[in-house]
């Protein structure tokens, strides 16, 4: 990795900074949900995959059990497995390097790598490592800032944090709602989760909506 393509480096840096700044929202949400500053920072260092982190603090914050939090977060983490499948032949690494590569296999590193693939496998590799490491650094710094900020706030509702957290989820979700099936599924999941809430322990209504995704996924294949 002697010479770094300038366009690849620029894209990696801009993605790292933009996405890393979301870490403020995560740190704040995590502390508002009842996690300590240390626990919030460990989630960003060790879990290091945004949607799963938001999910686990969301479920525990709503009173859900650790098990339903872990299960919900892990269902959201399955896509990283698929990214790994896609990236493994591009990166071609073993041992310790593979462990590092796995830890930074997320939406952004995979996305930038694939966008650089037309410049050759070397640019794709650089895109993956630069973006993965860049997001890792900024995401963790901003998590700490958000967690400390929320801790200093007092009542999260007085600062609107109780609405900022679902708004942040919505911001993550919105770009994924591409076609009719997506939007229908989103509305169905909202309705099912709300309908179940009074009758089930917290966390269960959320993870149950994964069944809706399976149902819609099977239907979508039949239409093809």
């Amino acid at each position, binding site marked *: 990795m002697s010479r770094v393509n300038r366009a690849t480096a620029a894209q990696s840096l801009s993605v790292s900074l933009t996405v890393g*700044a979301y870490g403020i929202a995560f740190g704040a949400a995590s502390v508002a949900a*009842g996690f300590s500053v240390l*626990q919030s920072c*460990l989630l960003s260092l*060790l*879990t290091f*995959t945004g*949607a799963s982190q938001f999910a*686990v603090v969301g479920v525990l914050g*709503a*009173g859900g059990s650790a098990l339903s*939090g*872990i299960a919900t*977060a*892990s*269902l*959201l983490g399955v*896509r*990283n*497995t*698929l*990214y*790994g*499948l896609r*990236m*493994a032949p591009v*990166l071609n690494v073993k041992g310790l390097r*593979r462990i590092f*590569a*796995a*830890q930074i*296999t997320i939406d952004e590193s995979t996305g930038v790598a694939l966008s650089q693939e037309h410049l050759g496998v070397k640019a794709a590799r650089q895109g993956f490592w630069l973006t993965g490491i860049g997001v890792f650094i900024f995401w963790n710094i901003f998590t700490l800032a958000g967690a400390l900020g929320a801790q200093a706030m007092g009542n999260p*509702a007085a*600062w*609107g944090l*109780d*609405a*900022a957290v*679902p*708004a*942040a989820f*919505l*911001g*993550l*979700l919105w770009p994924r709602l591409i076609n009719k099936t*997506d939007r229908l*599924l989103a509305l169905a*999941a*909202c*309705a099912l*989760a*709300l309908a179940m*809430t009074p009758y089930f*322990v917290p966390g269960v209504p*959320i993870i149950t*909506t994964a069944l809706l*995704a399976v149902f*819609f*996924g099977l239907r*979508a294949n039949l239409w093809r």
Partner: protein
Amino acid sequence: MEIDFPDPFWLAVIGTSLLAFILKYLGHSVPKRWLSHPRILKINSLIPIALLSALVAVQSFTKDSLLIADQRMAGVGVAILALILRAPFPVVVLSAAATSAALFNIG
């Protein structure tokens, strides 16, 4: 000071982190054909939509297992408006927070 063992927050941190890494590492280690079935790919792309939607709904409209409409609903409504107007992420989050905080502090 008493601590529940196992403390659910620590359990969640450790469990989520372990599984997240295993899922990532698995992708780098298993043969590609195992997971590249189109149906699995389709379902996998729909799961985040279902779970994130459910989370938004639960965090916006429930409290202690009850359905309620409060200042959060107004905040999330403003966020939806901002998203329709293609506002950047920080604007979406901050406009929701400002709306909700204003109503909370007045009410």
